[in-house]
């Protein structure tokens, strides 16, 4: 796929590698989302950020940590756990060694997004290298900060376009002393929005609420006494709700993560709609696009599903979501398939093109990833 690979270990080396590469550049981390979004230009120089790994600064008292963009999040979580802290983020592919930079660039998120948002809500500073070798930083090391533009947001979901991140600063949260999961039967997707509301109308404040395998999983986090009381209350308030024994809860969440990642051979798509539309949209995708492996968060309106790796089917999913006023992004696609990664371009795509033209006029960085929203060729010579 590439002409060559480089593996810088410092921001200076990264800058030189990006600036001096002859044509397009694609940054890689652990490669867990190499096949997400649209394919990068075939002649791109691959720059691995795996060498930019590790904790740069962690001050537990300030609840922040600065890390190299190539740091695997699971390793970081283990290090933070020793201080009773965590990045409140649990995307499925973290367990496969995904890096902080890769998770951020792909706008990935897991069940905890209900309570903590995605990495866009947790990253407070970033250092980025642009195509011309400019190294820029925005944000900082404090959680509360409104000085200057928040450039990190532009890189969140950009799938490696605009610039290559070298360092990321994250806000941390305490690890909850206790966690419980209550399961609630919900066999029919059409009933999902109502079932979700039944939970969020109670005062138990779940940190995650996900549909998987015909039931709703409600994760409660907090103090030992607190989660005990909340689990008991929830089971009492909602018909059929029951707390899962710890082993069953682990199995349920792990099967949820498996479904999110999807089986080999199918296209994985992440969608988002208004929560009340979720039942209807998912039901129609199951009926019309042969959607399977559905997981869904009824309180946020975000769902992940797989469909046959067929260009027309994937395009139909994009159209269905656009018609519902929602969003859709192709994640995994089987090797060798040519599937539309992006739906109809929104009006705001003019801004993406204008900002790209200003930051990377030759579209070198991540060229192809956002095709057709961004050009898949460089500027004419």
């Amino acid at each position: 796929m590439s002409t060559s690979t480089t593996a810088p270990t410092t921001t200076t080396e990264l800058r030189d590698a990006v600036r001096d590469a002859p044509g397009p550049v694609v940054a890689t981390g652990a490669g867990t989302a190499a096949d997400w979004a649209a394919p990068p230009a075939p002649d791109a120089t691959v720059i691995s950020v795996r060498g930019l790994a590790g904790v740069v600064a962690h001050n537990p008292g300030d609840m922040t940590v600065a890390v190299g963009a190539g740091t695997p999040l699971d390793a970081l979580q283990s290090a933070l756990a020793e201080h009773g802290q965590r990045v409140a983020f649990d995307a499925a592919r973290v367990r496969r060694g995904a890096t902080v930079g890769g998770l951020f660039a792909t706008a990935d998120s897991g069940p905890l997004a209900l309570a903590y948002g995605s990495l866009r809500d947790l990253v407070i500073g970033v250092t980025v290298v642009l195509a011309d070798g400019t190294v820029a930083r925005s944000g900082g090391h404090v959680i509360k900060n409104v000085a200057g533009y928040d450039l990190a947001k532009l890189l969140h979901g950009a799938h490696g376009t605009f610039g290559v991140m070298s360092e990321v600063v994250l806000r941390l949260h305490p690890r909850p002393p206790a966690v419980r999961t209550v399961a609630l039967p919900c066999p029919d997707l059409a009933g999902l929005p109502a079932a979700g509301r039944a939970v969020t109308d109670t005062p138990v404040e779940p940190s995650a609420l996900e549909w998987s395998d015909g039931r709703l999983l409600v994760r409660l986090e907090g103090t030992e006494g607190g989660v005990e009381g909340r689990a008991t209350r929830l089971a009492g308030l909602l018909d059929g709700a029951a707390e899962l024994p710890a082993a069953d809860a682990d199995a349920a969440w792990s099967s949820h993560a498996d479904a999110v990642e999807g089986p080999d051979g199918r296209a994985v798509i992440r969608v988002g709609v208004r929560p009340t539309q979720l039942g209807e949209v998912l039901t129609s995708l199951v009926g019309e696009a042969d959607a399977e492996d559905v997981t869904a968060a009824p309180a946020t309106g975000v769902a992940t599903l797989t469909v046959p790796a067929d260009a027309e089917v994937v395009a139909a999913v994009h159209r269905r979501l656009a018609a519902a006023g929602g969003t859709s992004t192709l994640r995994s696609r089987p090797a060798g398939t040519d599937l539309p990664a992006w739906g109809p371009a929104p009006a705001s795509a003019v801004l993406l093109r204008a900002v790209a033209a200003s930051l990377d006029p030759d579209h070198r960085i991540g060229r192809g990833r956002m095709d057709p929203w961004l050009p898949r060729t460089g500027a004419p010579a």
Partner: protein
Amino acid sequence: MTTATTGAGSTTGALAADFSALLPDTCVITDEVGLRSYECDGLTGFRQVPAVVVLPRDAEEVAACVRVCARHGVPFVARGAGTGLSGGALPVADGVVISLQKLRRILEIDVENRRAVLEPGVFNLDISGAAAPHGLYYAPDPSSQQVCTIGGNVAENSGGAHCLKYGFTTNHVLEMEVVLADGTLVTLGGPSSEQAGPDLRGLFLGSEGTLGICTKVTVRLLRKPEAVRTVLADFPSIEAAGDTVGAIVEASIVPAAVEMMDSLAMEAAEAAVGAGYTVEAPAALIIELDGPAEECDEQFAEITRLCEEHGATRIHVAGTPEERAKVWKGRKAAFAAVGRISPDYFVQDGVVPRTRLAEVLTRIAEMGSEVGLRVANVFHAGDGNLHPLVLYSEAAGEHETAEDLSSRIAELCVELGGSLSGEHGIGADKACSMTRMFTDDDLAVMQRVRAGFDPDGRCNPGKIFPTPRLCGERPGPFRPHPLEEAGVISRL
């Protein structure tokens, strides 16, 4: 009517005539007296009379006004309620002020989807007011929430006391309709937290009106927490109060809010509203917890224990909603109340890593006594966001000394690894200090992003970024982050 020449050579008369073709007379202000009421925002030291003020009534009219500005090549400044404290809504000479005060409809309270769709001129507190009958509320709560608009909140990424647990405006906005500098309307964000592609919504939030004008915004509403527990605790020293906050963090508790006040601030607040503060106490904390009842009770017991352990001299539990309101009233009134103990004052806004609170407060006190001025402190202790109030007397000719002290305090925050602003923004006020926090390259890249949105730089120019005109030929030098200096981090 003057015939001043605007930026691109259009005359104000021609400009105003084009606006008059779009809007009724009452929505186009060109008379001196009318214009004067828009000459500044909450930072009254910066004043500039604009050429024209327009008051469009809907998004289409906002877009049409922006297109008129584009045609004439003149800059424009969006304005909400004008409560900003950094000169963000300061007009540009010969430019246009586009006031959003007529776009003040709450378009929808969508109970099932827990969101509100708002025009930008809606007051922050009115969102929670409209949501309250459904047991819902809008979380970000700037102290100015009765009088500031959601459009201003979007532009400043405003925060409030409860942002410690709930996050800032950026964490609560789902979707926005925005008028770009050329007058086109785009939607940023979407109906769920999931977006396809880069987070342009997040980039716009906090951009201080320099990337476009927000004409509609969809925010998340939260279910009101089941339980709220509030305690007011006095401490024998600022250090003891600061250590208590550290102990709370270490105990894995994330309170909804942790606010600190020093004795000077309490003296002022007490004189103004009689909130029941102990004026003699060197420091006090307001700590609030909310959430499910069992969780709250357990953590509240722990918090009162930690306060005692750190030598609290009085622990007052606000047991009723009335008592809670009273405790908060003092805190929220503290800024204005300072007017009772000093003829004039500057409000500063800076952030330090929370663990450096005691250090920064000691340094601030020293800096104050060096120049003979008192500094009162009221701040969000949980996240290190300081609001030092520099007390001075205009009549005694202390203005410049006080202003200089206030700027040096913000820059001290940067030196200690923090930020120039936690919530009030950079605006015109701190643009020249930006070089203390960011390198020329950092700022140039931000400007390149801006050029993608507004290639001609007509959207609220002169804010955020230092310019030679504003700051002199050579604005203050960039100083490396302390961690950089210590060799812990490096950009290169």
